[in-house]
């Protein structure tokens, strides 16, 4: 943990982005308010994947499963009359955490390519489960009648209120995650990423730490899933498709692994680029692809590294 001098560029960037996010609804353009709500939700998912990928060194290719599971939890509960966010959102978090505990307990016994494959396999299993679950829309997905309620405190149906709520949750998630990666637990996780064998020889039962990290990341992703269900008022298996996991991976790598803030920038960058480029052509991936390659080759720490210099974030 090398001490930094204040203020430094990364804080300026952070403040600037924060200020920009605070002002979005003020323009009164529903399109942008909705777009940026979606971006922030993906920023939360990308950040959660960074906890396992960037800090824990675990390349999970199935992160969208937890995201989608959170969304389905909200949707299914709503179908059965549970509208309260105080019930539905914790259920989404706990549900995703429980699924992750099972998936993690099995897949974390492998590493490297096998870990990638097994997380992918589990995610696809879940995908096909919901794909064929006709009661809840099957492959078509299902609409939600309305957003969750919060005991009348605020109206989530109001796009601006919902926007600021998501913003608050995003900042809270960032704050808690920062505390976590700098805690003793965070050091252990980063030690495992750097050299797991050495950690075991120092006396750490590394499996436990990896599993807990995996479950925490999944819980956050599940929470983001609950938010996306509210945002889009529509749930489909597409949320957990492997290409979605790929998108989240791209956000993390593009933004800069192991910096928390970087992957959030990655989400912003990827979704904005998609929005702009798809205005020109539906084959926008053709343009995005080379851009990705350039960033990965020339900026090892992604967009964040480009902005703030490739400092060690340990």
């Amino acid at each position, binding site marked *: *943990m090398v001490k930094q001098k204040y203020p430094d560029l990364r804080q300026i960037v952070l403040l600037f982005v924060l200020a920009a996010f605070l002002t979005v609804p003020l323009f009164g353009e529903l399109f942008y308010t909705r777009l940026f709500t979606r971006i922030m939700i993906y920023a939360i998912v990308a950040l959660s994947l960074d906890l396992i990928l960037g800090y824990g060194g675990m390349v999970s290719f199935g992160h969208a499963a937890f995201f989608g599971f959170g969304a389905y939890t909200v949707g299914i509960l709503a179908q059965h009359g549970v509208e309260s966010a105080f019930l539905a959102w914790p259920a989404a978090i706990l549900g995703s955490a429980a699924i992750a505990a099972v998936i993690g307990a099995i897949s974390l016994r492998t590493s490297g390519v096998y870990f990638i494959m097994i997380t992918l396999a589990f995610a696809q299993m879940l995908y096909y489960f919901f794909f064929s679950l006709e009661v809840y829309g099957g492959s078509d997905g299902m609409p939600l009648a309305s957003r969750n309620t919060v005991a009348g405190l605020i109206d989530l149906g109001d796009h601006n209120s919902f926007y600021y709520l998501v913003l608050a949750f995003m900042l809270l998630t960032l704050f808690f995650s920062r505390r*976590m990666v700098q805690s003793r637990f965070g*050091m*252990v996780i980063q030690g495992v990423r*750097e050299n797991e064998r*050495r*950690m075991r*020889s120092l*006396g750490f039962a*590394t499996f436990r730490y990896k599993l807990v990290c995996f479950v925490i990341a999944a819980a956050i992703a599940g929470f983001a899933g609950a938010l996306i269900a509210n945002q889009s008022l529509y749930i489909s298996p597409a949320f957990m498709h492997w290409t979605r996991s790929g998108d989240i991976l791209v956000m993390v790598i593009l933004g800069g692994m192991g910096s928390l803030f970087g992957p959030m920038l990655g989400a912003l960058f990827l979704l904005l680029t998609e929005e702009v480029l798809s205005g020109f052509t539906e084959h926008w991936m053709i343009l995005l692809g080379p851009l990705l390659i350039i960033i990965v080759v020339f900026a090892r720490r992604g967009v964040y590294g480009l902005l703030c210099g490739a400092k060690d974030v340990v």
Partner: protein
Amino acid sequence: MSFEPLLETRELVKSFGAMMVSAGIDLFVRQGEIHAIIGPNGAGKTTLIAQLAGELRPDSGTITLCGKNITRLPMHARSSLGIARSFQITSIFQGFSVLDNVVLALQANNGHNFRFWRNAGKYSVIRRSALEVLDRVGLAERAHIVAGNLSHGEQRQLEVAMALGTRPKLLLLDEPMAGMGAEESERMISVLRGLKQEHTLVLVEHDMAAVFALADWITVLVYGRVIAGGTIDQIRSDPDVREAYLGDEEALAVYA
């Protein structure tokens, strides 16, 4: 030095396919001694260390620490019982500061690590102990440098510091002088001599000068078998050892 056995192995056997790398090894490490294990390349020294540390499980035989059978315990459990290991190939956390490398080692056996909130840097007792450990290996002044930027010799010292950080009863050092220049080796020898007061050391080393300067007892391993064991003088004059080291005889002769 007392004559209590701290670590003992009996009939330790380990094979990789048809190759028997440990062919019934009996080892007896007394409390407080520096016990050197020497032998030509491929003698099975590192494999033996790996079995003592718990990274490899022997096919048969037993390992006891302070009279407790630890043969089937995993690596991390042995670490908490007091066995620490340094690696032949430098195995430090390159991206961490030198201090944090040792802090991690100290954390391993100091309370539990499922603490998610408080900044790791705020555990001042642990950090102070880590600095003390660094001081013992002569790295205190380098504490705040990123470990990957240390010189090779310093990285080897850090390797030992991390093993020390777990507060072990028994230190397994796998070629601590590997790749070191003469001056660096000298420094390491004096570091290890300093450790002898409080720790028992099992030392695998090719550098005969270091072995003869430090060891109380030498075990000679050839093709997975113990062919000799004794004090420095006994080993020097042992005809089997001379034969095993044929060609390397000068190495032995120099220090005779």
